[in-house]
Protein backbone atom coordinates (compact mmCIF):
# COMPACT_ATOMS: atom_id res chain seq x y z
CA UNK A 1 0.00 0.00 0.00
CA UNK A 2 1.40 3.33 -0.92
CA UNK A 3 0.25 6.70 0.30
CA UNK A 4 0.01 9.44 -2.33
CA UNK A 5 -0.66 13.17 -2.18
CA UNK A 6 -4.41 12.70 -2.56
CA UNK A 7 -4.48 10.26 0.31
CA UNK A 8 -2.61 12.70 2.52
CA UNK A 9 -5.05 15.43 1.49
CA UNK A 10 -7.99 13.20 2.34
CA UNK A 11 -6.76 12.09 5.74
CA UNK A 12 -5.60 15.62 6.61
CA UNK A 13 -9.18 16.73 5.92
CA UNK A 14 -10.55 13.97 8.15
CA UNK A 15 -8.07 14.97 10.87
CA UNK A 16 -8.83 18.69 10.40
CA UNK A 17 -5.18 19.57 9.81
CA UNK A 18 -4.33 22.20 7.23
CA UNK A 19 -1.43 20.68 5.29
CA UNK A 20 -0.07 23.16 2.73
CA UNK A 21 0.01 21.85 -0.84
CA UNK A 22 3.83 21.85 -0.91
CA UNK A 23 3.96 19.64 2.19
CA UNK A 24 1.67 16.94 0.82
CA UNK A 25 4.36 15.09 -1.12
CA UNK A 26 7.01 15.16 1.63
CA UNK A 27 4.37 14.00 4.13
CA UNK A 28 3.39 11.17 1.78
CA UNK A 29 7.06 10.14 1.63
CA UNK A 30 7.40 10.20 5.41
CA UNK A 31 4.23 8.16 5.87
CA UNK A 32 5.34 5.65 3.24
CA UNK A 33 8.64 5.23 5.08
CA UNK A 34 6.70 4.32 8.21
CA UNK A 35 4.11 2.16 6.47
CA UNK A 36 6.78 0.22 4.60
CA UNK A 37 8.40 -0.59 7.91
CA UNK A 38 5.06 -1.54 9.47
CA UNK A 39 4.33 -3.89 6.53
CA UNK A 40 6.26 -6.61 8.36
CA UNK A 41 3.18 -7.23 10.50
CA UNK A 42 1.65 -8.83 7.43
CA UNK A 43 3.93 -11.84 7.79
CA UNK A 44 2.36 -12.95 11.09
CA UNK A 45 -0.49 -15.43 10.98
CA UNK A 46 -3.14 -13.88 13.22
CA UNK A 47 -5.99 -16.20 12.32
CA UNK A 48 -8.12 -16.98 15.34
CA UNK A 49 -6.22 -14.52 17.51
CA UNK A 50 -8.58 -12.18 19.37
CA UNK A 51 -7.86 -8.46 19.09
CA UNK A 52 -6.84 -7.00 22.42
CA UNK A 53 -9.50 -4.75 23.91
CA UNK A 54 -7.70 -4.24 27.21
CA UNK A 55 -4.58 -5.45 28.96
CA UNK A 56 -6.48 -5.25 32.24
CA UNK A 57 -8.09 -8.32 33.72
CA UNK A 58 -10.92 -6.44 35.34
CA UNK A 59 -14.61 -5.78 34.84
CA UNK A 60 -15.64 -2.28 33.83
CA UNK A 61 -16.32 -0.31 37.00
CA UNK A 62 -19.76 1.29 37.40
CA UNK A 63 -20.55 4.39 39.37
CA UNK A 64 -23.82 5.06 41.19
CA UNK A 65 -26.32 7.40 39.50
CA UNK A 66 -25.85 10.60 41.48
CA UNK A 67 -25.29 14.23 40.56
CA UNK A 68 -21.75 14.91 41.77
CA UNK A 69 -20.43 17.31 39.16
CA UNK A 70 -21.25 20.37 37.04
CA UNK A 71 -22.13 23.87 38.15
CA UNK A 72 -18.71 24.96 36.86
CA UNK A 73 -19.69 27.16 33.91
CA UNK A 74 -17.32 29.94 34.95
CA UNK A 75 -14.38 27.56 35.39
CA UNK A 76 -15.20 26.12 31.95
CA UNK A 77 -15.05 29.57 30.39
CA UNK A 78 -11.73 30.46 32.06
CA UNK A 79 -9.64 28.90 29.27
CA UNK A 80 -12.05 29.59 26.39
CA UNK A 81 -10.56 31.51 23.45
CA UNK A 82 -13.96 33.19 23.00
CA UNK A 83 -17.12 33.11 25.07
CA UNK A 84 -20.30 35.11 25.53
CA UNK A 85 -21.67 34.78 29.02
CA UNK A 86 -21.40 31.08 29.64
CA UNK A 87 -21.67 30.09 25.97
CA UNK A 88 -18.61 29.02 23.98
CA UNK A 89 -18.48 31.03 20.77
CA UNK A 90 -17.45 29.68 17.36
CA UNK A 91 -17.71 31.03 13.81
CA UNK A 92 -21.23 30.67 12.42
CA UNK A 93 -22.08 27.06 11.70
CA UNK A 94 -24.47 26.62 8.77
CA UNK A 95 -26.74 23.58 8.94
Amino acid sequence: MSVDKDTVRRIAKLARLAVPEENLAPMADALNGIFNWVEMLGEVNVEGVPAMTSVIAQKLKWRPDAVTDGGNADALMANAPEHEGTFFVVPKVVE
Partner: protein
Amino acid sequence: MSTAFTLAKARDALKARKISSKELTQSFIAAVEQGRPLNAFVTETPEKALAMAAASDARLAKGEGGALEGLPLAIKDLFCTKGVRTTAGSRILGNFVPPYESTVTQNLWNAGAVMLGKTNMDEFAMGSSNETSAHGPVFNPWRAKNSNANLVPGGSSGGSSCAVAADLCLAATGTDTGGSIRQPAAVTGTVGLKPTYGRCSRWGIVAFASSLDQAGPMTKTVRDAAILLGSMASVDAKDSTSMDVPVPDYEKLLEGGIKGLKVGIPKEYRMDGAPPEIAALWDKGADWLKAQGAEIVEVSLPHTKYALPTYYIVAPAECSSNLARYDGVRFGHRAKSARDITDLYEKSRAEGFGAEVQRRILIGTYVLSAGYYDAYYARAQKLRTLIARDFTEAYRKCDVLLTPATPGPAFAVGDKSDDPVAMYLNDVFTVTVNLAGLPGLAVPAGLTETGLPLGLQLIGKAFDEATVLRAGLAIEQAAGFAHKPANWWRAA
Protein backbone atom coordinates in the same frame (compact mmCIF):
# COMPACT_ATOMS: atom_id res chain seq x y z
CA MET B 1 22.94 23.40 50.85
CA SER B 2 23.80 20.75 48.28
CA THR B 3 20.97 19.28 46.29
CA ALA B 4 22.73 15.93 45.80
CA PHE B 5 20.33 14.21 48.20
CA THR B 6 18.49 11.06 47.43
CA LEU B 7 14.77 11.18 48.20
CA ALA B 8 15.25 8.72 51.08
CA LYS B 9 18.12 10.67 52.63
CA ALA B 10 16.29 13.98 52.42
CA ARG B 11 13.21 12.39 53.92
CA ASP B 12 15.17 10.97 56.83
CA ALA B 13 16.98 14.28 57.42
CA LEU B 14 13.65 16.13 57.44
CA LYS B 15 12.06 13.62 59.79
CA ALA B 16 15.06 13.92 62.11
CA ARG B 17 14.68 17.74 61.85
CA LYS B 18 18.33 18.05 60.74
CA ILE B 19 17.17 20.23 57.85
CA SER B 20 13.98 22.10 57.12
CA SER B 21 11.86 21.79 54.01
CA LYS B 22 12.26 25.54 53.55
CA GLU B 23 16.07 25.32 53.37
CA LEU B 24 15.90 22.28 51.14
CA THR B 25 13.34 23.88 48.85
CA GLN B 26 15.34 27.12 48.61
CA SER B 27 18.40 25.16 47.55
CA PHE B 28 16.41 23.41 44.85
CA ILE B 29 14.87 26.68 43.67
CA ALA B 30 18.40 28.01 43.26
CA ALA B 31 19.50 24.83 41.46
CA VAL B 32 16.53 25.09 39.10
CA GLU B 33 17.51 28.68 38.30
CA GLN B 34 21.11 27.73 37.72
CA GLY B 35 19.98 24.80 35.61
CA ARG B 36 18.05 26.95 33.15
CA PRO B 37 20.59 26.37 30.36
CA LEU B 38 19.45 22.73 30.42
CA ASN B 39 15.88 23.83 29.60
CA ALA B 40 14.51 21.11 31.89
CA PHE B 41 11.67 23.19 33.30
CA VAL B 42 8.98 24.92 31.26
CA THR B 43 7.27 26.44 34.29
CA GLU B 44 8.97 27.15 37.60
CA THR B 45 6.75 27.55 40.65
CA PRO B 46 9.10 28.85 43.38
CA GLU B 47 6.44 30.70 45.33
CA LYS B 48 4.16 27.72 45.41
CA ALA B 49 7.13 25.58 46.42
CA LEU B 50 7.99 27.85 49.33
CA ALA B 51 4.41 27.97 50.53
CA MET B 52 4.16 24.18 50.38
CA ALA B 53 7.52 23.87 52.18
CA ALA B 54 6.33 26.19 54.96
CA ALA B 55 3.21 24.10 55.41
CA SER B 56 5.35 20.94 55.49
CA ASP B 57 7.67 22.41 58.10
CA ALA B 58 4.66 23.26 60.25
CA ARG B 59 3.42 19.68 60.01
CA LEU B 60 6.87 18.22 60.64
CA ALA B 61 7.25 20.46 63.69
CA LYS B 62 4.13 18.84 65.13
CA GLY B 63 5.55 15.41 64.39
CA GLU B 64 3.01 14.96 61.60
CA GLY B 65 3.39 14.65 57.87
CA GLY B 66 2.98 12.20 55.03
CA ALA B 67 5.38 9.85 53.29
CA LEU B 68 6.83 12.66 51.14
CA GLU B 69 6.52 15.51 53.61
CA GLY B 70 8.56 18.53 52.56
CA LEU B 71 10.29 16.83 49.61
CA PRO B 72 10.72 19.00 46.46
CA LEU B 73 9.69 17.25 43.25
CA ALA B 74 9.47 18.13 39.58
CA ILE B 75 6.32 17.29 37.62
CA LYS B 76 6.23 16.40 33.94
CA ASP B 77 4.15 18.98 32.11
CA LEU B 78 1.72 16.26 31.03
CA PHE B 79 0.12 16.18 34.50
CA CYS B 80 -2.67 18.72 34.93
CA THR B 81 -1.90 20.89 37.93
CA LYS B 82 -4.66 23.09 39.28
CA GLY B 83 -3.91 26.76 38.75
CA VAL B 84 -0.51 26.04 37.16
CA ARG B 85 -0.11 26.25 33.38
CA THR B 86 -0.01 22.82 31.73
CA THR B 87 1.19 22.63 28.12
CA ALA B 88 2.05 18.98 27.34
CA GLY B 89 5.01 20.49 25.47
CA SER B 90 2.65 21.81 22.82
CA ARG B 91 1.67 25.16 21.40
CA ILE B 92 -1.91 23.98 21.00
CA LEU B 93 -2.66 24.11 24.71
CA GLY B 94 -1.64 27.78 24.73
CA ASN B 95 -1.61 28.98 28.29
CA PHE B 96 -4.03 26.32 29.49
CA VAL B 97 -4.46 26.54 33.25
CA PRO B 98 -6.29 23.44 34.46
CA PRO B 99 -9.11 23.98 36.96
CA TYR B 100 -8.34 20.51 38.36
CA GLU B 101 -5.43 18.48 39.71
CA SER B 102 -4.44 15.08 38.33
CA THR B 103 -4.96 12.15 40.70
CA VAL B 104 -1.24 11.27 40.73
CA THR B 105 -0.08 14.79 41.62
CA GLN B 106 -2.90 15.16 44.15
CA ASN B 107 -1.66 11.94 45.76
CA LEU B 108 1.83 13.48 45.95
CA TRP B 109 0.58 16.72 47.55
CA ASN B 110 -1.54 14.69 49.95
CA ALA B 111 1.67 12.90 50.97
CA GLY B 112 3.27 16.29 51.67
CA ALA B 113 5.47 16.73 48.57
CA VAL B 114 6.56 20.19 47.36
CA MET B 115 6.18 21.21 43.71
CA LEU B 116 9.18 22.94 42.12
CA GLY B 117 7.66 23.28 38.68
CA LYS B 118 6.69 21.56 35.46
CA THR B 119 9.26 19.80 33.32
CA ASN B 120 9.83 19.92 29.60
CA MET B 121 8.87 16.99 27.43
CA ASP B 122 8.34 15.88 23.88
CA GLU B 123 5.12 17.36 22.54
CA PHE B 124 2.22 15.25 23.85
CA ALA B 125 4.86 12.73 24.96
CA MET B 126 5.59 11.81 21.35
CA GLY B 127 9.30 11.47 20.99
CA SER B 128 12.41 9.79 22.36
CA SER B 129 14.75 12.76 22.59
CA ASN B 130 12.75 15.74 23.88
CA GLU B 131 13.40 17.50 20.59
CA THR B 132 9.73 17.77 19.62
CA SER B 133 8.85 20.11 22.50
CA ALA B 134 7.33 23.47 21.65
CA HIS B 135 9.58 24.85 24.40
CA GLY B 136 12.76 23.72 22.66
CA PRO B 137 15.05 20.77 23.35
CA VAL B 138 16.34 19.73 26.75
CA PHE B 139 20.05 19.07 27.09
CA ASN B 140 21.38 16.00 28.81
CA PRO B 141 23.53 16.96 31.82
CA TRP B 142 25.91 14.27 30.61
CA ARG B 143 28.45 14.97 27.89
CA ALA B 144 30.79 12.52 26.26
CA LYS B 145 34.43 12.58 27.36
CA ASN B 146 36.34 15.45 25.77
CA SER B 147 33.25 16.79 24.01
CA ASN B 148 31.08 19.87 24.38
CA ALA B 149 28.38 18.53 22.09
CA ASN B 150 24.90 18.75 23.56
CA LEU B 151 23.25 15.36 23.92
CA VAL B 152 19.57 14.57 24.23
CA PRO B 153 18.20 13.52 27.65
CA GLY B 154 15.93 10.90 26.09
CA GLY B 155 12.21 11.33 25.83
CA SER B 156 9.51 11.97 26.19
CA SER B 157 10.14 12.61 29.91
CA GLY B 158 13.43 14.38 29.07
CA GLY B 159 12.90 17.38 31.33
CA SER B 160 12.28 15.06 34.27
CA SER B 161 15.27 12.80 33.54
CA CYS B 162 17.48 15.83 33.13
CA ALA B 163 16.22 17.48 36.33
CA VAL B 164 16.84 14.32 38.37
CA ALA B 165 20.29 13.69 36.84
CA ALA B 166 21.37 17.30 37.37
CA ASP B 167 20.09 17.40 40.98
CA LEU B 168 17.50 20.07 40.14
CA CYS B 169 14.94 18.10 42.15
CA LEU B 170 14.90 15.12 44.49
CA ALA B 171 12.80 13.11 42.08
CA ALA B 172 10.31 13.67 39.29
CA THR B 173 7.20 12.21 37.75
CA GLY B 174 7.24 10.85 34.24
CA THR B 175 4.86 9.06 31.93
CA ASP B 176 5.69 6.12 29.74
CA THR B 177 3.74 5.12 26.63
CA GLY B 178 6.47 3.26 24.75
CA GLY B 179 9.53 3.84 26.93
CA SER B 180 9.23 7.51 27.87
CA ILE B 181 10.29 6.96 31.49
CA ARG B 182 12.80 4.13 31.10
CA GLN B 183 14.63 5.32 27.99
CA PRO B 184 15.37 8.85 29.32
CA ALA B 185 16.29 7.38 32.72
CA ALA B 186 18.77 5.01 31.07
CA VAL B 187 20.53 7.73 29.07
CA THR B 188 20.81 10.10 32.04
CA GLY B 189 22.10 7.60 34.62
CA THR B 190 18.89 7.67 36.65
CA VAL B 191 16.22 5.19 37.72
CA GLY B 192 12.86 5.10 35.92
CA LEU B 193 9.92 2.84 36.65
CA LYS B 194 6.93 2.28 34.42
CA PRO B 195 4.37 0.58 36.66
CA THR B 196 1.81 -1.98 35.54
CA TYR B 197 -0.94 -0.44 33.41
CA GLY B 198 -3.71 0.43 35.87
CA ARG B 199 -1.39 0.95 38.85
CA CYS B 200 -1.32 4.78 38.68
CA SER B 201 -4.44 6.69 37.76
CA ARG B 202 -4.47 8.33 34.35
CA TRP B 203 -7.08 10.86 35.48
CA GLY B 204 -5.82 14.38 34.84
CA ILE B 205 -2.85 13.31 32.73
CA VAL B 206 -3.04 14.67 29.18
CA ALA B 207 -3.69 11.53 27.13
CA PHE B 208 -1.43 10.37 24.32
CA ALA B 209 -2.34 6.70 23.83
CA SER B 210 -4.83 5.69 26.49
CA SER B 211 -4.23 1.94 26.41
CA LEU B 212 -0.46 2.39 26.87
CA ASP B 213 0.05 5.54 28.95
CA GLN B 214 1.21 5.04 32.51
CA ALA B 215 2.72 7.44 35.05
CA GLY B 216 5.72 6.46 37.10
CA PRO B 217 8.61 7.71 39.22
CA MET B 218 11.96 9.01 37.95
CA THR B 219 14.52 8.98 40.72
CA LYS B 220 18.16 8.72 41.68
CA THR B 221 17.92 5.30 43.31
CA VAL B 222 15.79 2.20 43.26
CA ARG B 223 14.75 2.85 46.87
CA ASP B 224 13.55 6.31 45.86
CA ALA B 225 11.50 4.77 43.05
CA ALA B 226 9.87 2.43 45.57
CA ILE B 227 9.09 5.36 47.87
CA LEU B 228 7.71 7.61 45.14
CA LEU B 229 5.62 4.87 43.51
CA GLY B 230 4.07 4.16 46.91
CA SER B 231 2.60 7.66 46.88
CA MET B 232 1.84 8.00 43.14
CA ALA B 233 -0.08 4.73 42.91
CA SER B 234 -3.70 4.45 43.99
CA VAL B 235 -6.99 2.85 43.16
CA ASP B 236 -8.99 5.63 41.48
CA ALA B 237 -12.74 5.49 40.92
CA LYS B 238 -12.35 8.26 38.33
CA ASP B 239 -10.29 6.07 36.00
CA SER B 240 -12.11 3.00 34.62
CA THR B 241 -8.73 1.42 33.83
CA SER B 242 -7.37 1.89 37.35
CA MET B 243 -7.05 -1.57 38.81
CA ASP B 244 -8.62 -2.49 42.15
CA VAL B 245 -5.41 -3.76 43.74
CA PRO B 246 -4.26 -2.34 47.08
CA VAL B 247 -0.97 -0.42 47.04
CA PRO B 248 1.66 -2.35 49.01
CA ASP B 249 4.59 -0.83 50.93
CA TYR B 250 7.12 -1.01 48.11
CA GLU B 251 10.01 0.27 50.23
CA LYS B 252 9.50 -2.46 52.79
CA LEU B 253 9.29 -5.06 50.03
CA LEU B 254 12.81 -4.09 48.87
CA GLU B 255 14.20 -6.19 51.72
CA GLY B 256 14.98 -9.85 51.43
CA GLY B 257 17.39 -10.16 48.51
CA ILE B 258 16.96 -12.22 45.35
CA LYS B 259 18.07 -15.67 46.42
CA GLY B 260 16.23 -18.22 44.29
CA LEU B 261 14.76 -15.57 42.00
CA LYS B 262 14.40 -16.88 38.46
CA VAL B 263 15.63 -14.28 35.99
CA GLY B 264 14.70 -14.77 32.34
CA ILE B 265 16.97 -13.63 29.51
CA PRO B 266 14.84 -13.21 26.35
CA LYS B 267 16.99 -14.33 23.46
CA GLU B 268 15.20 -12.15 20.91
CA TYR B 269 16.60 -9.04 22.61
CA ARG B 270 20.02 -9.81 21.15
CA MET B 271 19.63 -7.49 18.23
CA ASP B 272 21.82 -7.60 15.16
CA GLY B 273 23.99 -4.54 14.90
CA ALA B 274 23.58 -3.49 18.52
CA PRO B 275 26.74 -2.01 20.03
CA PRO B 276 28.88 -4.68 21.76
CA GLU B 277 28.92 -2.53 24.89
CA ILE B 278 25.22 -3.14 25.32
CA ALA B 279 25.54 -6.93 25.07
CA ALA B 280 28.49 -6.91 27.43
CA LEU B 281 26.61 -4.87 30.03
CA TRP B 282 23.65 -7.19 29.75
CA ASP B 283 25.87 -10.23 30.40
CA LYS B 284 27.39 -8.42 33.33
CA GLY B 285 23.96 -7.73 34.76
CA ALA B 286 23.06 -11.41 34.57
CA ASP B 287 26.30 -12.30 36.35
CA TRP B 288 25.57 -9.76 39.11
CA LEU B 289 22.18 -11.28 39.76
CA LYS B 290 23.55 -14.82 39.63
CA ALA B 291 26.21 -13.86 42.15
CA GLN B 292 23.47 -12.79 44.53
CA GLY B 293 21.69 -16.10 44.31
CA ALA B 294 19.39 -15.70 41.31
CA GLU B 295 18.93 -18.41 38.72
CA ILE B 296 19.38 -17.34 35.12
CA VAL B 297 17.14 -18.99 32.50
CA GLU B 298 16.88 -18.36 28.79
CA VAL B 299 13.37 -17.55 27.60
CA SER B 300 11.80 -16.68 24.28
CA LEU B 301 9.56 -13.74 23.37
CA PRO B 302 9.08 -14.69 19.71
CA HIS B 303 7.00 -11.65 18.67
CA THR B 304 9.46 -9.08 19.95
CA LYS B 305 10.42 -7.74 16.54
CA TYR B 306 6.80 -6.89 15.80
CA ALA B 307 6.38 -4.79 18.91
CA LEU B 308 7.59 -1.46 17.53
CA PRO B 309 5.54 -1.57 14.31
CA THR B 310 2.53 -2.69 16.35
CA TYR B 311 3.09 0.24 18.66
CA TYR B 312 3.34 2.65 15.72
CA ILE B 313 -0.17 1.66 14.69
CA VAL B 314 -1.89 1.45 18.06
CA ALA B 315 -0.39 4.59 19.59
CA PRO B 316 -1.01 6.93 16.62
CA ALA B 317 -4.55 5.55 16.23
CA GLU B 318 -5.40 6.38 19.82
CA CYS B 319 -3.56 9.70 19.62
CA SER B 320 -5.46 10.77 16.50
CA SER B 321 -8.67 10.40 18.51
CA ASN B 322 -7.35 11.70 21.86
CA LEU B 323 -6.02 14.84 20.22
CA ALA B 324 -9.27 15.66 18.42
CA ARG B 325 -10.37 17.71 21.43
CA TYR B 326 -7.67 20.29 20.67
CA ASP B 327 -9.85 22.23 18.29
CA GLY B 328 -9.58 25.83 19.47
CA VAL B 329 -13.12 25.92 20.83
CA ARG B 330 -13.06 25.47 24.61
CA PHE B 331 -9.40 25.99 25.49
CA GLY B 332 -5.98 26.34 23.95
CA HIS B 333 -4.75 27.92 20.76
CA ARG B 334 -7.25 29.35 18.27
CA ALA B 335 -6.15 30.55 14.84
CA LYS B 336 -7.01 34.12 13.99
CA SER B 337 -9.44 35.14 11.25
CA ALA B 338 -10.83 31.75 10.40
CA ARG B 339 -13.39 31.82 7.57
CA ASP B 340 -15.65 29.20 9.11
CA ILE B 341 -15.62 26.44 11.67
CA THR B 342 -13.72 23.95 9.49
CA ASP B 343 -11.12 26.57 8.69
CA LEU B 344 -10.85 27.33 12.40
CA TYR B 345 -10.19 23.67 13.18
CA GLU B 346 -7.71 23.13 10.37
CA LYS B 347 -5.71 26.28 11.01
CA SER B 348 -5.71 26.07 14.79
CA ARG B 349 -4.52 22.49 14.69
CA ALA B 350 -1.92 23.09 11.97
CA GLU B 351 -0.52 26.04 13.93
CA GLY B 352 -0.76 24.37 17.30
CA PHE B 353 0.66 20.90 16.67
CA GLY B 354 4.31 20.31 15.81
CA ALA B 355 5.55 18.17 12.93
CA GLU B 356 5.89 14.86 14.79
CA VAL B 357 2.44 15.15 16.36
CA GLN B 358 0.90 16.00 13.00
CA ARG B 359 2.64 13.02 11.43
CA ARG B 360 1.26 10.69 14.10
CA ILE B 361 -2.24 12.13 13.86
CA LEU B 362 -2.15 11.44 10.13
CA ILE B 363 -0.83 7.90 10.61
CA GLY B 364 -3.54 7.24 13.19
CA THR B 365 -6.28 8.72 11.03
CA TYR B 366 -5.14 6.60 8.12
CA VAL B 367 -4.97 3.27 9.97
CA LEU B 368 -8.47 3.77 11.39
CA SER B 369 -10.05 4.98 8.17
CA ALA B 370 -12.53 2.98 6.15
CA GLY B 371 -10.87 0.14 4.29
CA TYR B 372 -7.66 0.16 6.34
CA TYR B 373 -8.93 -0.64 9.83
CA ASP B 374 -8.65 -4.41 9.50
CA ALA B 375 -5.29 -4.39 7.74
CA TYR B 376 -3.71 -2.10 10.30
CA TYR B 377 -5.50 -1.42 13.57
CA ALA B 378 -7.28 -4.75 13.99
CA ARG B 379 -4.14 -6.66 12.99
CA ALA B 380 -2.00 -4.63 15.40
CA GLN B 381 -4.39 -5.37 18.28
CA LYS B 382 -4.13 -9.07 17.45
CA LEU B 383 -0.37 -8.82 17.53
CA ARG B 384 -0.69 -7.19 20.92
CA THR B 385 -2.49 -10.29 22.10
CA LEU B 386 0.37 -12.43 20.78
CA ILE B 387 2.99 -10.19 22.40
CA ALA B 388 1.18 -10.36 25.74
CA ARG B 389 0.94 -14.16 25.41
CA ASP B 390 4.71 -14.33 24.86
CA PHE B 391 5.19 -12.81 28.30
CA THR B 392 2.67 -15.13 29.91
CA GLU B 393 4.58 -18.07 28.44
CA ALA B 394 7.96 -16.70 29.57
CA TYR B 395 6.69 -16.17 33.12
CA ARG B 396 6.01 -19.90 33.40
CA LYS B 397 9.79 -20.25 33.53
CA CYS B 398 10.89 -17.15 35.43
CA ASP B 399 9.85 -14.38 37.82
CA VAL B 400 11.41 -11.38 36.14
CA LEU B 401 13.17 -10.57 32.87
CA LEU B 402 16.48 -8.81 32.39
CA THR B 403 17.12 -6.86 29.17
CA PRO B 404 19.05 -3.81 28.00
CA ALA B 405 17.11 -0.58 28.47
CA THR B 406 18.16 1.16 25.27
CA PRO B 407 20.04 0.23 22.11
CA GLY B 408 22.71 2.83 22.89
CA PRO B 409 23.69 5.85 24.97
CA ALA B 410 22.44 9.41 24.58
CA PHE B 411 22.97 10.79 21.09
CA ALA B 412 23.63 14.31 19.94
CA VAL B 413 20.82 16.82 19.55
CA GLY B 414 19.70 16.81 15.92
CA ASP B 415 21.28 13.42 15.11
CA LYS B 416 18.13 11.40 14.47
CA SER B 417 15.49 14.05 13.97
CA ASP B 418 15.31 13.53 10.19
CA ASP B 419 14.57 9.83 10.25
CA PRO B 420 11.42 8.91 12.18
CA VAL B 421 12.00 5.17 12.04
CA ALA B 422 15.58 5.54 13.36
CA MET B 423 14.18 7.66 16.19
CA TYR B 424 11.45 5.12 16.93
CA LEU B 425 14.09 2.37 17.30
CA ASN B 426 15.25 3.95 20.57
CA ASP B 427 12.24 2.33 22.19
CA VAL B 428 12.88 -1.13 20.81
CA PHE B 429 13.56 -2.68 24.24
CA THR B 430 10.93 -0.79 26.19
CA VAL B 431 7.84 -0.80 23.98
CA THR B 432 6.89 -4.47 24.37
CA VAL B 433 6.29 -3.83 28.06
CA ASN B 434 3.68 -1.15 27.33
CA LEU B 435 1.92 -3.33 24.78
CA ALA B 436 1.57 -6.07 27.40
CA GLY B 437 0.77 -3.65 30.24
CA LEU B 438 3.63 -4.90 32.43
CA PRO B 439 5.93 -3.08 34.88
CA GLY B 440 9.43 -2.18 33.69
CA LEU B 441 12.34 -0.59 35.51
CA ALA B 442 15.48 1.05 34.08
CA VAL B 443 18.50 1.04 36.40
CA PRO B 444 21.87 2.67 35.64
CA ALA B 445 24.47 -0.07 35.26
CA GLY B 446 27.58 1.41 33.75
CA LEU B 447 29.26 3.89 31.43
CA THR B 448 30.22 3.59 27.80
CA GLU B 449 33.84 3.99 26.80
CA THR B 450 32.98 7.59 26.03
CA GLY B 451 31.75 8.07 29.58
CA LEU B 452 27.98 8.05 28.99
CA PRO B 453 25.51 6.16 31.18
CA LEU B 454 23.80 2.96 30.10
CA GLY B 455 20.97 1.18 31.85
CA LEU B 456 19.51 -2.28 32.21
CA GLN B 457 15.82 -3.06 32.27
CA LEU B 458 13.90 -5.40 34.54
CA ILE B 459 10.45 -6.49 33.44
CA GLY B 460 7.99 -8.05 35.85
CA LYS B 461 4.64 -9.74 36.00
CA ALA B 462 1.56 -7.55 36.22
CA PHE B 463 1.33 -5.82 39.61
CA ASP B 464 4.62 -7.36 40.73
CA GLU B 465 6.54 -4.08 40.96
CA ALA B 466 7.98 -5.35 44.25
CA THR B 467 10.00 -8.11 42.58
CA VAL B 468 11.13 -5.76 39.81
CA LEU B 469 12.33 -3.26 42.39
CA ARG B 470 14.12 -5.91 44.45
CA ALA B 471 15.95 -7.19 41.38
CA GLY B 472 16.69 -3.59 40.42
CA LEU B 473 18.17 -2.96 43.83
CA ALA B 474 20.44 -5.98 43.36
CA ILE B 475 21.70 -4.56 40.03
CA GLU B 476 22.14 -1.13 41.56
CA GLN B 477 24.16 -2.47 44.47
CA ALA B 478 26.35 -4.65 42.28
CA ALA B 479 26.94 -1.91 39.70
CA GLY B 480 27.79 0.64 42.38
CA PHE B 481 26.95 3.36 39.87
CA ALA B 482 28.10 6.53 41.63
CA HIS B 483 28.95 8.63 38.57
CA LYS B 484 27.64 12.17 38.25
CA PRO B 485 27.67 14.43 35.22
CA ALA B 486 30.14 17.31 35.32
CA ASN B 487 28.36 20.45 36.34
CA TRP B 488 28.99 22.39 33.11
CA TRP B 489 25.67 24.24 32.98
CA ARG B 490 26.28 26.49 36.00
CA ALA B 491 29.13 28.12 34.14
CA ALA B 492 27.13 28.31 30.93
